[in-house]
């Protein structure tokens, strides 16, 4: 038997001059502060990307609308897509990973704190580079400002001839720079998890959160890098007169598509796996049961990691691949649904027979389960290549991937906010505002994205800036836009909740949810060194062992 006392100071309360405070935040190498910086920058860009989405929705509200010009519309959807994927989803997930992984595995920081800071500033400055294009994108040519060739930047649209000025250069450099940041963070996450676990924290005792983020980081290493390579090629084409994607010199536009989607599809899993990680921590705590099928969960995640590397060309069924390629990618895409389905059953199995507490994090988690299932089902529909030929590049596809990204990823991220905000700030988020946020967002989400499938089936193509009346799309688009505004309202409630609760929220204490992982054993917010004494663990739920010495988990492992 060994025993130790974790004593944690609450932190100095002396008021520091704000310049000092700011300086400390800007030069910090503390994983918790960097995590919060990641999350705050993601929130900033969530609002910016959200405004771009609203511009798109106002323009499409009714036929022949003239709210913005076609050029501005193109910039809006390009910037919306790029922003939301690279500067909202990735940073917010990296932020939570950064903040939580060392706490969960009983470490005092990430393996490379300075690399961590470097990675954050790369990704943040990458985002600024993208947005600087609004000012500097026209360059000497005076043509265009922000990039307007879509977040895929398909060849030859990204070439000099079709994208004059510097808008595409800002886009390319921005993704290249932030991509290097992502690789740095991924290396850091892997090294932290493999090398800094506290004594007793064997791999099969790690919280699923750490496991899933380990898989995510591994995927980042092989999924983000093809994009970086493709961006280098695009830069060579644009600046050195190369011919990689120059069809007139024998280059191939399809090769760009392949390179982009070799990144692009695993990227979806890079984003969703950390959300699975949130679910795997939140659902057990609010069901008052340990996770169902821990080893299967790990195996399914690793399996997704591998299979998702070989599904990318299902984004390209309509470019005219041969039937072998079509069949192969149809098959692999359907196969990747199997481990994903296993996970859904595991979460439901965790809830089954549990004493479920419907707190806000759990509400968002249940929303996630339901919506992610539907998103997966439309995904399986489009995995069938003949079906995809019919609906590719229509609003059905837009509805499908927003179901994944908003209905899945964003709901999971909201659940994570409500669950871990008390740990990060020491204050609870308001449950009342939380419920308003949840229900408003749920209604807005379903109004927008359930309905959006229909104009897609009716033949409305994506990326059109306006449409003719009398095609049966007007009412539907109007409803979709109303839903978008309800979602925006819900986000305002959320931001208000974040701000109000920071000052007036109830004191959280160390462990407001009666949870089981190590981050709840230290104070809220944790001191700079996390743990006064590095903990030792003997089971998957160290805090359960602590709270129930008469019946610890370690007895059964």
């Amino acid at each position: 038997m060994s025993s130790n006392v974790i004593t944690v100071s609450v932190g100095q309360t002396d008021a520091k001059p704000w310049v000092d405070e700011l300086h400390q935040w800007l030069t910090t190498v503390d994983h918790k502060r960097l995590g919060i910086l990641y999350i705050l920058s993601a929130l900033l860009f969530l609002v910016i990307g959200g405004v771009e989405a609203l511009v798109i929705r106002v323009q499409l509200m009714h036929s022949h609308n003239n709210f913005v010009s076609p050029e501005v519309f193109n910039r809006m959807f390009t910037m919306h897509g790029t922003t939301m994927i690279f500067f909202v989803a990735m940073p917010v997930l990296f932020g939570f990973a950064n903040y939580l992984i060392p706490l969960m595995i009983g470490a005092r920081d990430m393996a490379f704190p300075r690399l961590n800071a470097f990675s954050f500033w790369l990704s943040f400055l990458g985002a600024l580079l993208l947005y600087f294009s609004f000012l500097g994108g026209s360059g000497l040519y005076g043509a265009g400002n922000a990039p307007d060739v879509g977040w895929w930047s398909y060849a030859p649209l990204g070439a000099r001839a079709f994208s004059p000025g510097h808008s595409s250069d800002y886009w390319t450099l921005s993704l290249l720079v932030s991509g290097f940041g992502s690789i740095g963070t991924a290396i850091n996450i892997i090294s932290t998890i493999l090398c800094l676990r506290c004594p007793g924290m064997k791999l099969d005792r790690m919280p699923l959160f750490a496991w899933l983020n380990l898989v995510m980081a591994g995927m980042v290493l092989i999924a983000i890098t093809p994009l970086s390579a493709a961006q280098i090629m695009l830069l060579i084409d644009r600046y050195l007169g190369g011919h990689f994607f120059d069809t007139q010199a024998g280059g191939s536009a399809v090769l760009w598509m392949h390179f982009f989607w070799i990144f692009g599809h695993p990227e979806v899993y890079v984003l969703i796996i950390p959300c699975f990680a949130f679910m795997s921590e939140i659902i057990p705590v609010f069901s008052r049961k340990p996770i169902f099928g821990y080893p299967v969960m790990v195996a399914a995640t690793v399996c997704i990691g591998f299979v998702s590397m070989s599904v990318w060309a299902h984004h390209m069924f309509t470019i005219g691949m041969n039937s072998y390629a079509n069949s192969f990618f149809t098959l692999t895409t359907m196969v990747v649904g199997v481990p994903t389905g296993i996970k859904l059953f595991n979460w439901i199995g965790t809830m089954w027979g549990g004493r479920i507490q419907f707190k806000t994090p759990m509400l968002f988690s249940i929303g996630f389960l339901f919506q992610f299932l539907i998103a997966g089902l439309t995904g399986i529909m489009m995995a069938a290549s003949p079906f995809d030929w019919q609906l590719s590049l229509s609003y059905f596809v837009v509805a499908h991937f927003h179901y994944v990204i908003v209905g899945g990823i964003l709901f999971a991220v909201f659940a994570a906010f409500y669950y871990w905000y008390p740990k990060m700030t020491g204050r609870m988020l308001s449950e009342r505002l939380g419920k308003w946020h949840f229900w408003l967002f749920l209604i807005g989400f379903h109004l927008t994205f359930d309905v959006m499938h229909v104009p897609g089936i009716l033949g409305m193509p994506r990326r059109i800036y306006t449409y003719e009346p009398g095609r049966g799309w007007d009412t539907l688009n109007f409803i979709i836009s109303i839903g978008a505004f309800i979602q925006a309202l819900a986000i305002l409630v959320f931001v208000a909740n974040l701000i109000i609760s920071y000052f007036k929220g109830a004191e959280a204490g160390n462990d407001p949810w009666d949870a089981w992982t190590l981050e709840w054993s230290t104070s809220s917010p944790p001191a700079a060194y996390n743990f006064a004494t590095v903990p030792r663990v003997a089971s998957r739920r160290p805090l359960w062992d602590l709270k129930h010495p008469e019946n610890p988990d370690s007895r059964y492992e």
Partner: protein
Amino acid sequence: MSAVTTSFPKATAAWDLPSRGKVAMAGLIVAESAIFTIFVVAYLFYLGKSITGPTPREVLETPIVYTICLLSSSLTIHLAAKCLERGIGFAFLGLWLLTIALGGLFLYGTAQEWHRLIYEHGLTISTNLFGTTYYSLVGLHAFHVTAGLIMLSVVAIFGFTGRMGMSQAGRVGVLSMYWHFVDAVWVVVFTVVYVLGR
């Protein structure tokens, strides 16, 4: 102050975790391999698709001597790291400088080849698809050799100032992992460009 009393049931006897430097370098190598894979795929995909000349068969000459230089530098850096582990500082520094020299010689070879291609055959990165893919792939590798040489030189400077002791063996081990990787990539690039690609 807030305190949580923790009494965890069992202490684990031995707790060995891998070195974070080695794990991180392995991660970097995986990431870099993916980047190189994409460039190799592009090279192979565009073989023979150039609309105008020159073609690889016409202009490329197999750089056997320089390849031997680079590959043998893997051996010398390995021996250097071993010497450092055993604390033979003099041999370490000698082998380390030899590694730098071999790497430098390889870069000189690349420079000479590029000079020949540009001035004798008029092949630049914008001439045709072969030029684009060839200079990108070989250039990406040469860039990594250059980065490696800079890091090796920093270590050499530390060596001259007498700061490279046995305590640094772990770090030198990590750096030599990178150098081995750069060599291994050359094996692939060499095979693709000079053997299969002609």
